[in-house]
């Protein structure tokens, strides 16, 4: 590390890091130099010149932009000389000529309260009081710090542009734009979407999209990054547009396992009115996604459940908590442990999950406890067994530096969005991106190699790659010999994976498999992101094993910018597993049901939440407690969960809203949301982070742990007298390996990655960073059998894909009533053989129907599917954004459809014209 650099600003001694600019060093030392186009974590741009300073180096004096001038030892910076302040004023005055500034230059602005709209002094179009950014406007603060000379009034030229209100989620009023290009730069430099751009030039240069089209067509992912950086009212969230924040609460987004740290703005009526990506968040570096940014406000909803209800004579009656608990205690009575289940919320905190499983195990005497989105237990258990944690080996932002990124059967840009941000950055910097997926997703656009194996043969393809690597001696021999075990067994097992056999089974040419294997082996460090979207459930373990092997033999585990990242579905999947909230928690640990409890041997453990629902359908499970917050009861990944729950004899539901699940319940309990509780979540990179209470529950809502603890006390169980969630965490930390060094107090300062064994441990950014001391510490490479995919349940499989933009297909956005609609004819790609069998012609109208005859896709047939049996349709991401925007459901985020493969029938549609309109 080169030494820090000392220099002076306005006579004050300042030290900065090498490579910093004057402005950055000033900000770090708490000195203020006005600036407008600069924004932390983006490249300096030097456009606005608001940051001018005078620098002096030896004899040389110059006036420069402080945001682009690197610091140097002995540099003398002056930001307050008369020349500089004059210049700065001139610059701001020019800017003000195109920005309403009546209020900014008004002599009584300090007296002017928010509601106190003056009638005469400033014209209507010229007032900050009618701007949505009023009172949280960065431009205003900057301009006022410059102290304009107000003796001569400035002119204001209003651009008279229409306000864009047609897009989902946010409004654009370019009358207020100061063309700082922060939004354009964040979209290009940080998000890599290039959905907005600078248009025209000189006096009429402005921000916009190609030909002024809507964001729905321009490739926008609605991440909201541009809104968060905009210093003016030009870009603002539409919901709660005019609401002022009374206070800010730092919290964590509970919509996916990235766990973005967000600043929640809460108004004086205790409503959360905005979610802003927190620049201090280590998992997200200030970024967020459409779900985090715009699906946060369900806690505000009027229709929330407020009180407990008990069903009597078919009708839910309001009761007290005590009465509800009595009813639950009676309902469970002494049912056998094998006949009951506890389903925790995928958004539940570690505290909720810990108490849920403690209740299940010590009160109900069952291991039937899981979260509703723990859909890939074999992925987690394989990782846990082999790498000691079900989380990723490396931190998320390590991906920035990867030279090769392989994405297998997952769609992170949509489902774990911010994880894809550093990935795209690596791709732009030249990293080799390999996508193994039959679907077209946004990342396939970045892929150097896009491999489309037959669904369910991904693991065989990966072992085929391992075979090539070993055959061509491309494995990292030194790493393998010093850190791994089992390489010989692997080599022996690989003889079955003859590449011609692999090629036959996967449908991928052997030359291509070799090529990809070489690319992956040669470009280090390489990381792997993997989901199981296209993989049948019985192969989840095999896929995970194949991936870990590949990462180990190429020497990528425990290496910066290498490693593996599992793409889980639930926001707190990892935390719930850590807290033991899974039937698969290891037997004999503190967390599981002791053999001999109840005087009987415990029933065999069930295989994850899907199996628990199967047990309900088959009648083996008769009674359950379900935390329904964040669960999709409809045709989500659990199948028709609501109907399984309806078949129960006794059902308790803790929920935020009434829905199909509460309709089936015998007892309904009101649940609190993330705004009403303090607790921790563990994200996919093992970072334990704190969600903080924004307000205390308005009515009788209780959090998950409170619900279970009060029920346990009612059922006369011991060990449930927790004071608060900090107390729950204390107990959790004493039981769960890897959490021992953590406490709520410690986490106040920021998230910490597990394992964190002691209170002085900083946590573990990376797993297996050290070479093992002994053979026991070696990472095992495991031999794999050549297991094929189960026979497909139907002849044809639909692979739905989603991309941000498809410039080659005409899209039309029209407005009907208050809403936008996308019009477009979809292309359904069919393989030639299948088309021949059905006597389909290119251009025929077809529809893909599922088992129940519901239409999953419709469009014109095109003969271009890579695999016989595979049908693909690629839709625009914008349709999902519209869908979420227009959803009736107060909490749309759990219902956003993923992209799983589905068995389908293909039929010719009579007339395509009838289907040309879509996306409502």
């Amino acid at each position, binding site marked *: 590390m080169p030494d820090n650099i000392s220099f002076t600003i306005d006579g004050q001694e300042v030290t900065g890091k090498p490579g910093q600019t004057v402005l950055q060093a000033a900000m770090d030392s708490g000195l203020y130099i006005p600036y407008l186009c600069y924004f932390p974590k983006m490249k300096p741009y030097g456009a606005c010149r608001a940051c001018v300073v005078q620098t002096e180096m030896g004899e040389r004096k110059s006036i420069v932009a402080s945001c682009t001038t690197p610091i140097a030892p002995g540099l003398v910076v002056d930001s307050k000389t008369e020349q500089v302040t004059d210049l700065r004023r001139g610059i701001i005055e020019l800017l003000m000529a195109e920005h309403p500034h009546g209020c900014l230059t008004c002599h009584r602005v300090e007296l002017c309260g928010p509601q106190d709209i003056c009638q005469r002094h400033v014209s209507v179009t010229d007032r900050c009081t009618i701007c949505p950014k009023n009172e949280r406007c960065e431009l205003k603060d900057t301009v006022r710090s410059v102290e304009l000379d107000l003796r001569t009034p400035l002119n204001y030229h209003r651009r008279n542009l229409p306000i864009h209100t047609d897009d989902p989620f946010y409004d654009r009023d370019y009358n207020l734009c100061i063309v700082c290009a922060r939004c354009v730069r964040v979209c290009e430099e940080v998000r890599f*979407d*290039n*959905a*907005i*751009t*600078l*248009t*025209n*030039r000189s006096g009429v240069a402005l921000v916009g*999209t*190609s*030909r002024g089209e809507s964001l729905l067509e*321009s*490739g926008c992912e609605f991440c909201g990054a541009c809104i968060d950086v905009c210093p003016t009212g030009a870009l603002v969230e539409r919901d709660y547009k005019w609401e002022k924040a009374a206070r800010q609460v730092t919290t964590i987004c509970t919509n996916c396992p990235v766990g973005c740290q967000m600043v929640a703005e809460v108004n004086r009526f205790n409503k959360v009115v905005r979610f802003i990506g927190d620049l201090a968040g280590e998992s997200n570096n200030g970024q967020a996604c459409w779900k985090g940014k715009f699906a946060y406000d369900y806690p505000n909803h009027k229709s929330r459940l407020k009180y407990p209800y008990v069903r009597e004579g078919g009708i839910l009656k309001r009761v007290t908590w005590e009465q509800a608990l009595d009813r639950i205690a009676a309902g469970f009575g002494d049912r056998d442990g094998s006949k009951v289940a506890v389903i925790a919320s995928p958004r539940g905190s570690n505290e909720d999950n810990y108490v849920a499983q403690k209740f299940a195990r010590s009160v109900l005497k069952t291991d039937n406890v899981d979260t509703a989105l723990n859909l890939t237990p074999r992925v987690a258990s394989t990782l846990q067994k082999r790498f000691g944690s079900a989380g990723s080996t490396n931190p998320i932002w390590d991906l920035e530096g990867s030279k090769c990124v392989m994405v297998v059967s997952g769609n992170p840009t949509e489902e774990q969005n911010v994880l894809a941000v550093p990935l795209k950055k690596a791709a732009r910097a030249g990293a080799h991106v390999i996508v193994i997926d039959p679907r077209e997703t946004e990342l396939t656009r970045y892929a150097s190699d896009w491999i489309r194996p037959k669904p369910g043969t991904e693991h065989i393809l990966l072992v085929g790659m391992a075979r090539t690597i070993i055959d061509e001696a491309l494995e990292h021999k030194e790493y393998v010999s010093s850190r791994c075990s089992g390489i010989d067994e692997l080599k022996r097992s690989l003889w079955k994976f003859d590449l011609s056999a692999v090629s036959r089974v996967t449908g991928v040419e052997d030359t291509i498999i070799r090529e990809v294997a070489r690319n992956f082996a040669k470009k280090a460090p390489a990381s792997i992101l993997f989901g199981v979207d296209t993989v049948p459930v019985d192969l989840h373990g095999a896929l995970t094993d194949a991936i870990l092997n590949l990462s180990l033999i190429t020497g990528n585990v425990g290496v910066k910018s290498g490693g593996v990242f599992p793409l889980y579905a639930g926001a707190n999947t990892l935390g719930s597993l850590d807290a033991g909230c899974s039937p698969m928690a290891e037997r004999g640990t503190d967390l599981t049901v002791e053999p001999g409890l109840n005087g009987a041997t415990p029933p065999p453990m069930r295989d994850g939440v899907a199996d628990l629902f199967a047990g309900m359908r088959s009648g083996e499970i008769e009674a359950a407690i379900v935390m329904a917050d964040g669960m999709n009861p409809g045709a989500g990944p659990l199948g028709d969960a609501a109907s399984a729950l309806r078949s129960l004899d006794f059902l308790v539901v803790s929920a935020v809203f009434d829905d199909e699940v509460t309709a089936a319940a015998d007892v309904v309990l009101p649940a609190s949301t993330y705004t009403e509780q303090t607790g921790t979540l563990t994200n996919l990179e093992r970072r334990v982070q704190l969600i903080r209470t924004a307000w205390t529950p308005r009515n009788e809502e209780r959090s998950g742990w409170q619900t279970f603890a009060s029920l346990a006390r009612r059922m006369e169980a011991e060990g449930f007298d927790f004071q608060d969630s900090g107390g729950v965490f204390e107990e959790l930390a004493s039981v769960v390996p890897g959490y021992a060094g953590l406490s709520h107090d410690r986490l106040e300062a920021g998230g910490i990655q597990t394992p964190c064994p002691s209170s002085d441990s900083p946590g573990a950014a990376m797993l297996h960073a050290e070479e093992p001391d002994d053979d026991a510490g070696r990472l095992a490479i495991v031999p794999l059998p050549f297991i094929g995919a189960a026979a497909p349940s139907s002849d044809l499989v639909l692979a739905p894909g989603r991309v941000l*933009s498809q*410039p*080659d297909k*005409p899209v039309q956005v029209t407005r009907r009533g208050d809403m936008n609609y996308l019009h477009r004819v979809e292309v359904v790609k069919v393989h030639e053989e299948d088309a021949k069998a059905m006597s389909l012609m290119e251009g025929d109208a077809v529809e893909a129907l599922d088992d129940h005859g519901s239409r999953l896709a419709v469009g014109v047939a095109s003969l271009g599917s890579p695999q016989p049996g595979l049908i693909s349709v690629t839709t625009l991401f914008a349709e999902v954004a519209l869908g979420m925007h227009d959803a009736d459901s107060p909490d749309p985020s759990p219902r956003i459809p993923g992209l799983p493969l589905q068995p389908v029938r293909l039929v010719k549609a009579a007339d395509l014209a009838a289907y040309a309109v879509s996306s409502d």
Partner: protein
Amino acid sequence: MATTKAELGDSIRERVRCALKQQPQPTVTVLSSLLAVQDAIHYLPDEAIEETAGFCKASVNEVWSVASFYTNFRFTPPGAHVIEVCWGPSCHLAGAQGVLAAVQQELNLFREGETDDRRATLRYNTCLGACALAPVISIDHHLKGRITAGDAKDLAGGLLVD
């Protein structure tokens, strides 16, 4: 009819693709691609923006950013003939104002643009590079120097009938 419109779109797309592919120079950029398309079909239709984006692996917005920056790119088809009137300093001193007024009157135009029958496009130019011959106009890129208002009017009128 929808079909003919689609076909037309396709043929424009084809022509755009051809122009993009046939660029002779070794370095192909967004700018060079847009120039090639405009040379081939005299304007940049929506398809050109989309195809150029695909061809240069850029987003449509990036391409638009370049295209909208240069005033020489046009986004609607030009008229059958282009008449440019120079209003640069030399021509201005030599009476360009009268020439311009005469042409505008003849074409029934008040600013740059196309005549209603799309037979002629009027453009202003800030210097046609032939100041010694001021005032200068150009018709379909052929310069006419020492022009008088009357001659200019006749030439402009001729464009509407030939």
